């Protein structure tokens, strides 16, 4: 069939380099995206009682993906009422029965993981490589893990027959839309609670797709309810009098407002807030792997990670060596189309977030820190920010103190372990930290000294459903994941 014969394309060798041809994932794999969405209440997709609608855009193209409802107080009221009605039966089910639903949801997530990964990438702007290889496997793993706990709650260390709290109102951020949903919904359902969840206003699509999965799994109506909208909807949910438990992941200012709002009520509250993690590299560290850890720590998910290693503390004696290696490595980072399987860094989630990153990096320069970025091209449309490194940063700089939530790394130095600890802890936050050294005793000593909920040793940004996650100080309170994550949803 000569007509099918085509000559192999000319090898691409721009300026003598091995250039990877685009390897785009198909946007069609995300499945049908409706032009507009209502809420998911009582097992049905329903229209909002109000007329206000918000738009969600693809941050890589700025194209509107769909309209969705701005949830009103009445919508929240309906959702909480549906959850309350469902609670009676759901909490009375034997744990082994609840587990069956959770296992079923986990399996459906695995079966539909490509669809969910592509949808997440389109809605959020994060690279498909991360949604495919990190987010979705972890989402399924959380449902599997908590499904396993559902019939073993008597052995979780909270006494025999611990009771669920009732209706959980959950508000999640836009950086890991589906993963944060899993972190919150899986333990809530395993322990017998019912939920009303509000996804972030820039990334509602995967939560709404998850609602379909709940229906596919035959989950009893009202056990999971999704109400979309912005902060007003969130406030209506967290302040609703018939909510027994509030779980929030997001910024510290909003967390503080919720804590004030709930003070004096009987609602149980867990908060996962901001961070400004120190990633500490000693002179005896495995340098090549430390560089990978630094890159993964701050450039993973465009730096939209509350536990991102945004402050690099490097021992003075290896400062030059580490920085040279880091810059060389940053030169190979590929920024661009999130759906390209070879993209390392995708789009910034929103124009607002891009503006905040831009403002803080300008402040860094104005305050005298030295800025460096690799020479990479950025797409013309969409929200983009080059991976950025600041050297000559001191503790007094804003970029060393405030959470930037973008691909921006501040580099500080230290001379002794005690100085490293002092600088690492000198922050209002305390979510995570990383230690890089080949000396085991120093790892243990550092882990004891660091005021952070998670301390990674010779690695960074590693997550596992069996491992609890949470913060100190202004990074919030309560733990998610692991056996500890059950406590937030049990009356103990």
């Amino acid at each position, binding site marked *: 069939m000569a007509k099918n014969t085509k000559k*192999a394309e000319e*090898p691409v060798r721009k300026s003598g380099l091995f250039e990877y*041809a685009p390897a785009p994932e198909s946007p069609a794999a995300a499945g049908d995206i409706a032009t507009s969405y209502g809420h998911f209440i009582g097992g049905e997709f329903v229209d909002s009682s109000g007329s206000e609608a918000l738009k969600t855009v693809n941050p890589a193209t700025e194209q509107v993906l769909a309209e969705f409802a701005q949830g009103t107080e009445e919508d929240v009221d309906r959702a909480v009422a549906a959850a309350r009605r469902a609670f009676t039966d759901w909490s009375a089910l034997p744990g082994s029965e609840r587990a069956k639903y959770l296992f079923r949801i986990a399996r459906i997530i695995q079966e539909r993981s490509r669809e969910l990964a592509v949808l997440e990438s389109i809605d959020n702007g994060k690279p498909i490589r991360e949604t495919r290889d990190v987010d979705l496997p972890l989402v399924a793993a959380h449902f599997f893990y908590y499904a396993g706990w559902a019939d073993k709650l008597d052995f979780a260390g909270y006494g025999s027959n611990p009771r669920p709290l009732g209706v959980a109102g959950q508000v999640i951020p836009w950086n890991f839309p589906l993963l944060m949903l899993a972190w919150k919904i899986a333990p809530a359902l395993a322990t017998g609670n019912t939920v009303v969840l509000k996804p972030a206003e820039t990334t509602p699509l995967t939560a709404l797709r998850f609602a379909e999965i709940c229906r596919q799994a035959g989950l009893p109506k009202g056990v999971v309810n999704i109400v979309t909208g912005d902060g007003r909807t969130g406030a209506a949910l967290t302040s609703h009098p018939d909510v027994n438990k509030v779980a929030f992941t997001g910024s510290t200012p909003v967390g503080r407002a919720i804590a004030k709002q709930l003070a004096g009520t009987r609602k149980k509250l867990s908060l996962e807030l901001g961070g400004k993690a120190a990633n500490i590299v000693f002179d005896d560290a495995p340098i090549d792997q430390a560089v990978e850890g630094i890159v993964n720590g701050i450039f993973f998910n465009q730096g939209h990670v509350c536990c991102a290693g945004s402050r690099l503390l490097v021992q003075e004696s290896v400062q030059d060596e580490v920085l040279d290696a880091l810059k060389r490595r940053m030169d*190979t980072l590929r920024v661009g189309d999130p759906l390209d*399987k070879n993209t390392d860094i995708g789009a910034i989630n929103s124009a607002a977030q891009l503006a905040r990153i831009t403002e803080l990096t300008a402040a860094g320069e104005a305050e005298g820190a030295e800025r460096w970025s690799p020479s990479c091209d950025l797409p013309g449309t969409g929200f983009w920010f080059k991976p950025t490194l600041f050297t000559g940063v001191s503790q007094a700089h804003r970029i060393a103190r405030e959470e930037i939530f973008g691909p921006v790394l501040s580099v500080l130095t230290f001379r002794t372990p005690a100085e490293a600890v002092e600088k690492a802890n000198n922050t209002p936050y305390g979510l995570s930290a990383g230690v890089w050294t080949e000396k085991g005793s120093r790892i243990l000593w550092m882990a004891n000294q660091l005021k952070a909920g998670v301390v990674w040793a010779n*690695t960074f940004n590693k997550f596992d459903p069996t491992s609890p996650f949470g913060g100190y100080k202004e990074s919030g309170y309560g733990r998610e994941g692991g056996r500890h994550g059950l406590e937030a949803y049990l009356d103990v």
Partner: protein
Amino acid sequence: MSTLAANATSAAGSGLADVAASEASLRRFLHGLPGVDQVGLEARAATLGTRSIKTSAKAYAIDLAISMIDLTTLEGADTVGKVRALCTKGRNPDPTDQSAPRVAAICVYPDMVATAKAALNGTDIQVASVATAFPAGRASLPVKLADVADAVAAGADEIDMVIDRGAFLSGRYLSVFHEITAVKAACRRPDGTAAHLKVIFETGELQTYDNVRRASWLAMLAGADFIKTSTGKVAVNATPPVTLLMLEAVRDFRQQTGVQIGVKPAGGIKTTKDAMKYLVMVNETLGDDWLSPHWFRFGASSLLNDLLMQRQKLTTGRYSGPDYVTVD
């Protein structure tokens, strides 16, 4: 090409001249190299393995991979006929498509060097030979040197030597160092030129990644032109993490001394997909400087056919089958 003299000069300039002055100084140096974190190294190699190489990039990579192959036959049953057939294939890998590039070298036992040399006459395909009592390396130094001299005299362009893993694992680094320098000297030809020296670590026997990094530096300090993972004769041969580690070592060595060393993973690389992963590792660790048969080779016997089949698929749009490529 780096020579022993060039190595020594630049090593002196970089403060490495006295490293091999004594067993103690050599040990101190090798043990002072940055450690390797196993989890991190393997994770990085796995991540590089997920790069998606398609269309034009794939066409380029396939041809590059073919041109980097040391087409190898190292069997006890090797015959003159088999080696000649292999040489013919190396010159003209795909009889149906003359645009397919030739391989980099034909790799044979020393007694087959003359046969290969004659069969490759008129081409620039190198003849590589595994000497030094390959693959175990269990012979006295004079025997190993005679093996090397024999292969060089027969016309070998490249010598693949194995290190004494027993000496290395028991910490007698200086003995390994001296053996490499002696073999390097034996690679010299009467006309003053020298066969290219590839030093094989048999990384599957070195047990730890720290050992692989130390072996890499040891060989480079001793004058290796290439460092090579393995013989292909043990259970664990080239792996992506080990190769990545060796790539990092040659990168650091050039930064410190200015001398560029080649890398050759060998054994177990059978598919185009595997080869692509290695090329991605080279590309993202060392960049364009090493993306040439001059600095990176695949030691392989069955990889070529898979590359040819993938190449035919890109050209015709259809998959062929094993009968559309030659068996030797």
